[in-house]
């Protein structure tokens, strides 16, 4: 049965290879190849899932050893796959949501002449992401880790003819590279500490502990912090979050799949997977929670200020992942809920993005929400699915977001102590803000008067992302319409998921029991009862919605963004953190390199050329002595003779 793991990865990989190498002759059928192959791997995932369910809770781990990858002396890296409950969860999420989004893309990218390549990249991403979650050791995971980075680079920059897209792609890759640095250092540390970096030996299983126990806490903290750095890069956590907003330059399905549902959650996976290490390094855990909490608020605030619908959603993604990281930082109390929120978030956030894509599809690729409004009667399906996703994410009781997020807030309080209160408070506040900005998005898009009627041209401030906007200045009056079936069906499915997912998981602690063997779990002692917390959450939610309604529901929304308060303006610019990067890193780096280039030319090379010039000049001087007059030669001869005599006399004297 474990032999099915490799095909699981191989299928999309094959697709990528075929589509990218195949050339133009595949242009017509290419996208369907991609879709089929992703569904194939989804099917394989389901089969394996069934197989796992058939086993006892303790033995739900399949490993498949393919071949020895890098065998050098003590350094043994194998290509081995490990399928346990955790990775199984991810496999289903990835392949499931992935397949849906493949399907959606067929419609969305219908008019792009490079659609074949797009699906090639998507398949490549699937393969890499599966490799990431199925790897049995950190080095192999690293391969997948960078693989998804590459795929995201290619997809963000898919419309390469746009400088903004190319830049965004580059930025994403670079920021991720910083994270990858953390990961590779972590691996090196593991190797020097444990002499291995495979999950089995290092982390151990729930019955027999791994090598982690033997290592010093300081060393473990170092490893954990490096892993956290990696997670920050991939999951767009502060301080490495800056790339996610720009990543919205990519086509919307990409934003849905990679930058909302799957890839950005890889960081959470890494932390949860390395739980054993984090459990042994409380300081690192604290750092994780802090990062999570900060990002949670950061993303939420940014989300409030953006008028670009995708960027607003990106902000929300950031903050939702903040929730997950926060939960993961709480240790065994939170691991399960982190993953659970990850899955539910995968549903509703993907749904929301697809909805946004569908809206843009119908709106001439307009992304500025101030140019939307009153769309609910033009695109009902989109409205409904998007609405359900909205309710889910703000944690409307009964929907999936409610369950998962509520659990996380409880867990945060349950951490105990002042930090418990702080974290819990942050989480609550985050819930309120979430409610606010999501409502804002909802209202600005689907309610209010139709601001697109008198929209002259796409505002230069928010350049629209999609390719049709490339057709220059002339702007046709948008006539909103519902998207084709191939796009709406995935949205519907995801909506269903986001409605019932949470309930399905939580009732009877299904998800908890499923994951517990891998991640371990313990109920922290919350200072407040679950009921109180839930109530508080509800209150926050209502407050948030109310404020949003007061601002965007009652009053008409101005078609041009008002100047706004200082905070708003800062938030529009990602809280100035990009400007910081620009000034410090980019400018500084440019100056550094420029001065270095100058130094290399003038100093290092100058020494060499200087020596050469010196010799040239010297020989020029010496040449003067040869003036061609026999008599001056005679003088030198005579002088020489005199010297000889002197020498002989001296010799005699001494």
């Amino acid at each position: 049965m474990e032999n099915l793991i490799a095909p699981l990865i191989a299928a999309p990989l094959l697709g990528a290879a075929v589509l990218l190498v195949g050339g133009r002759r595949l242009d017509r059928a290419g996208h369907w190849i991609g879709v089929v192959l992703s569904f194939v791997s989804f099917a394989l995932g389901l089969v394996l899932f069934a197989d796992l369910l058939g086993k006892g809770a303790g033995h739900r781990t399949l490993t498949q050893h393919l071949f020895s990858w890098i065998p050098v002396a003590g350094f043994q890296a194998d290509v081995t796959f490990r399928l346990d409950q955790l990775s199984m969860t991810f496999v289903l999420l990835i392949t499931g949501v992935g397949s849906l989004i493949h399907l959606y893309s067929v419609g969305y990218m219908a008019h792009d002449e490079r659609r074949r390549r797009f699906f090639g990249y998507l398949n490549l991403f699937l393969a890499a992401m599966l490799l990431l979650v199925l790897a049995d050791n950190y080095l192999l995971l690293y391969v997948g880790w960078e693989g998804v980075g590459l795929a995201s680079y290619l997809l963000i920059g898919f419309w390469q003819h746009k400088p903004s897209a190319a830049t965004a792609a580059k930025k994403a890759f670079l920021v991720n590279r910083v994270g990858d640095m953390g990961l590779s250092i972590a691996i090196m540390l593991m190797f020097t500490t444990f002499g291995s970096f495979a999950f089995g030996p290092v982390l151990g299983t729930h019955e027999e502990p791994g090598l982690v126990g033997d290592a010093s806490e300081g060393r473990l903290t170092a490893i954990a912090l490096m892993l956290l750095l990696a997670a920050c890069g991939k999951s767009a956590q502060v301080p490495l979050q800056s790339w996610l907003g720009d990543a919205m330059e990519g086509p919307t399905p990409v934003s849905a799949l990679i930058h909302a549902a799957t890839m950005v959650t890889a960081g959470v996976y890494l932390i949860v997977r390395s739980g054993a290490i984090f459990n042994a390094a409380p300081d690192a855990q604290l750092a994780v929670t802090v990062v999570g909490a900060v990002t949670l608020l950061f993303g939420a605030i940014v989300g409030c200020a953006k008028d670009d619908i995708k960027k607003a959603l990106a902000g929300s993604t950031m903050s939702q992942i903040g929730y997950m990281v926060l939960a993961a930082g709480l240790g065994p109390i939170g691991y399960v809920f982190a993953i659970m929120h990850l899955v539910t978030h995968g549903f509703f956030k993907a749904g929301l993005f697809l909805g946004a894509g569908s809206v843009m599809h119908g709106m001439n690729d307009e992304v500025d929400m101030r140019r939307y409004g009153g769309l609910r009667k033009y695109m009902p399906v989109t409205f409904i699915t998007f609405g359900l996703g909205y309710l889910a994410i703000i944690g409307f009781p009964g929907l999936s977001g409610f369950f998962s997020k509520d659990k996380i807030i409880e867990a945060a309080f349950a951490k105990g102590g002042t930090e418990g209160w702080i974290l819990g408070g942050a989480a609550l506040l985050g819930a309120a803000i979430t409610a606010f900005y999501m409502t804002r998005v909802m209202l600005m898009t689907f309610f209010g008067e139709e601001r697109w009627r008198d929209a002259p041209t796409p505002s230069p401030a928010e350049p629209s992302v999609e390719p049709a906007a490339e057709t220059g200045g002339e702007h046709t009056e948008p006539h909103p319409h519902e998207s084709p079936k191939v796009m709406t069906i995935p949205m519907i499915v995801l909506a269903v998921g986001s409605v019932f997912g949470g309930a399905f998981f939580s009732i009877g602690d299904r998800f908890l029991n499923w994951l517990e063997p891998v991640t371990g779990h313990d109920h922290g002692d919350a200072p407040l009862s679950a009921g109180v917390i839930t109530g508080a959450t509800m209150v926050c939610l209502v407050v948030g919605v109310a404020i949003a309604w007061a601002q965007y529901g009652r009053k008409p929304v101005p078609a041009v963004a008002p100047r706004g308060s200082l905070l708003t303006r800062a938030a529009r610019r990602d809280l100035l953190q990009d400007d910081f990067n620009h000034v410090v890193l980019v400018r500084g780096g440019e100056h550094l390199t420029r001065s270095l280039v100058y130094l290399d030319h003038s100093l290092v090379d100058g020494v060499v050329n200087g020596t050469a010039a010196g010799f040239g000049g010297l020989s020029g001087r010496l040449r003067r002595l040869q003036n061609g007059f026999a008599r001056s030669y005679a003088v030198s001869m005579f002088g020489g003779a005199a010297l000889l005599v002197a020498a002989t006399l001296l010799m005699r004297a001494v």
Partner: protein
Amino acid sequence: MNPVNYLYLAALLFTIGATGVLIRRNAIVVFMCVELMLNACNLAFVAFSRMHGNLDGQIIAFFTMVVAAAEVVVGLAIIVSLFRTRHSASVDDASLMKL
């Protein structure tokens, strides 16, 4: 008087001759100075032969004269032909090999 004085004289003449070689431009005069140097040497040789009481020194001086004669003959011939071609007997003009 100490006959070593002959040697001093020889040295003096030799030096004078050498200096002459260096400062005169006229090839013929240069030649004369060379002859002067040779003669100085001869004087030294003769004085030596007297000191050592054998005639070898004189023999050497004799050979020197012969060689000097040959040298003068050839040298002057060279000067003449040089003068014919370049209408000048200045050693400074014979600098064709200068870059």
